[in-house]
């Protein structure tokens, strides 16, 4: 694995580097958030180990900016801040995992393996399907340059379809992505898909939302 280690404490950084080198990982090191962001956007890493309190740009800001720039590199936040509020802030900024100091190097390595198995996040940045553009961070949708206005449910539906595009998404998966375990009894999904189709496809030559009868829906240029 190629890992970017962002940590302002050089002794701790050197220790982590030594251990990860024993695990046969290649580690690049950045002392502050600005340098780290430059490296993370210019190069490809399998994972980022990120300290929160750092000079110039803190870990939360680094994470937000990384996601806005469409980079889905898995991020493991490493910090002494261990309150629930701190953890929630970390996840809100776009981190994928959280490890509090002091920690075991073995656990750090195990978590890195788990993160790399999942691969980069696909729900960041801008996804394009044909002339349809979906900005996951800003929750903005446009088609052929024309901004489309979607409500929360419609955006969740489109996001689920876009992440699987051009693949098929089953009705059950779509329902779960919107309502979780509390799926309404009526066929509310059909109504929402109908409305979404009216917004996304009406007035455009090529329909993008397709129905696979009895199976589900998919977003693709056919």
């Amino acid at each position, binding site marked *: 694995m190629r890992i970017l280690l962002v940590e302002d404490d050089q002794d*701790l950084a050197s*220790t*982590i580097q*030594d*251990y990860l080198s024993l695990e046969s990982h290649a580690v690049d090191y950045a*002392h502050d958030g600005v340098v780290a962001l430059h490296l993370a956007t210019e190069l490809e890493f399998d994972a980022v180990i990120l300290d929160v309190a750092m*000079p110039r740009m803190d870990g939360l800001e680094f994470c937000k900016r990384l996601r806005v720039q469409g980079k889905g590199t898995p991020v493991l936040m490493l910090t*002494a*801040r261990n309150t629930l509020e701190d953890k929630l802030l970390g996840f809100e900024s776009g981190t994928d995992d959280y490890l509090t100091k002091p920690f075991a*190097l073995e656990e750090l390595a195990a978590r890195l393996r788990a993160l790399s198995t999942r691969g980069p996040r696909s729900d960041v940045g801008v996804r394009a399907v044909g002339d349809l553009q979906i900005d996951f961070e800003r929750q903005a949708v446009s088609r052929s340059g024309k901004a489309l206005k979607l409500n929360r449910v419609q955006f969740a539906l489109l996001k689920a379809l876009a992440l699987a595009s051009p693949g098929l998404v089953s009705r059950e998966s779509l329902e779960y992505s919107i309502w979780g375990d509390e799926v309404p009894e009526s066929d509310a999904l059909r109504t929402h898909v109908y409305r979404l189709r009216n917004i996304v496809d009406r007035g455009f030559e090529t329909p993008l939302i397709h129905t696979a009868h009895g199976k589900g829906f998919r977003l693709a240029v056919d």
Partner: protein
Amino acid sequence: MTFSNRLSLTFGIFTVVISLLFAVLFADALNLLEEKLIGSLLRQEAAVLEEGYRRDSASLVLPDLEQLKGYLSGQRDTPEWLAPFDPGYHDSQDFQVLVVELEPERFLYLVYDERIGVLDRNEAEINLLLAGVVAVVMLIGFALAWTQGRRLSAPLVKLADQMSAGNGAIERELLERDDEIGLLSRSYAEQMERIEAFIAREQAFTQHASHELSTPLSIIRSNLELMREPRADVEMQQKSVARMEQAIARMQRQIGIFLVLAREEQLRGTEEAVDFEGVLEELLSDHPDIVLERVVEEWPALHVDADLLHAVLQNMLSNIERHGERTSGGYFATLCVGSHSCSIRNRIDDPLRVSQTRGGFGLQINRKLCIAAGWKFEHKVTGDTFAATVTFG
């Protein structure tokens, strides 16, 4: 006794006293009125009789009513007890007597018998009526007192409820009252704000302490793990030992500083001079990105805990890394050292962020440490330049 009951009782007693006074005054006023009316009646009657006497004394008919009787002195039926009365109006317990001198040694006595007057005849009924009125007034008074007591104490009860809720939130309505309850509410709210600020500072300090200690602890733990790692070579293990030693020294320093900050330990002066330059060099080796231009007039000869100087300088250097402007060559700063002071000046990348953090990293701690050491710590942001100065002694 509750405040509202006290208020009710006070108002109630006041109502009773006022009602009784009113009853006494009313009864006296009635008696006075009766006397005035009778006096007036007697004088009118006397004037008529006096005129009749002067016209024809022989045919004068004196009043002989159940309540009002007239007598002339020297007549047989004139009661003897009237003889001592001089001319004028006399009010005895049961009678009112008007004596008029018709001619020398000739007196007219008009006697009004109060015992069979309207008031005396109906005294029981009047007293009953008065007692009834007093009772009703007292009842109304008590009811009003009870209501007012509760009404006046309601804001206090509300304030007490909000205080006991424990969240420190006081309703705007109470805070804006222009009375003693408003004053109490505002004082409580201000006190709560102070307590909350104190708790927030304590929490921030605890978090800071936890953060500062957890990093060296992580280094020790990770390096122990690394040393147990069979794949680690001798060189790696030696590095681990060195890192652990540094981390332990760092922890020791920080614990000492935290104890000073928590005021659990007084600063101990040292007889040996601290090597200012040595401490600075050691710190700069941990901050390779800082490029320091030094203007040294004289290295200060300090007799202070070396850990304290270490912490003050460490915070000043960390502040450069946190908020300083980074160029391709690193963070540039100017250090001016004299026998009695040391100052660091550097450009900052975001003055707004510096102002939001109350000046920068560790500066509040530096201020406290300098107070503990008997030094003075000042910092100033001018445009995009930050300057911090420590004056020794």
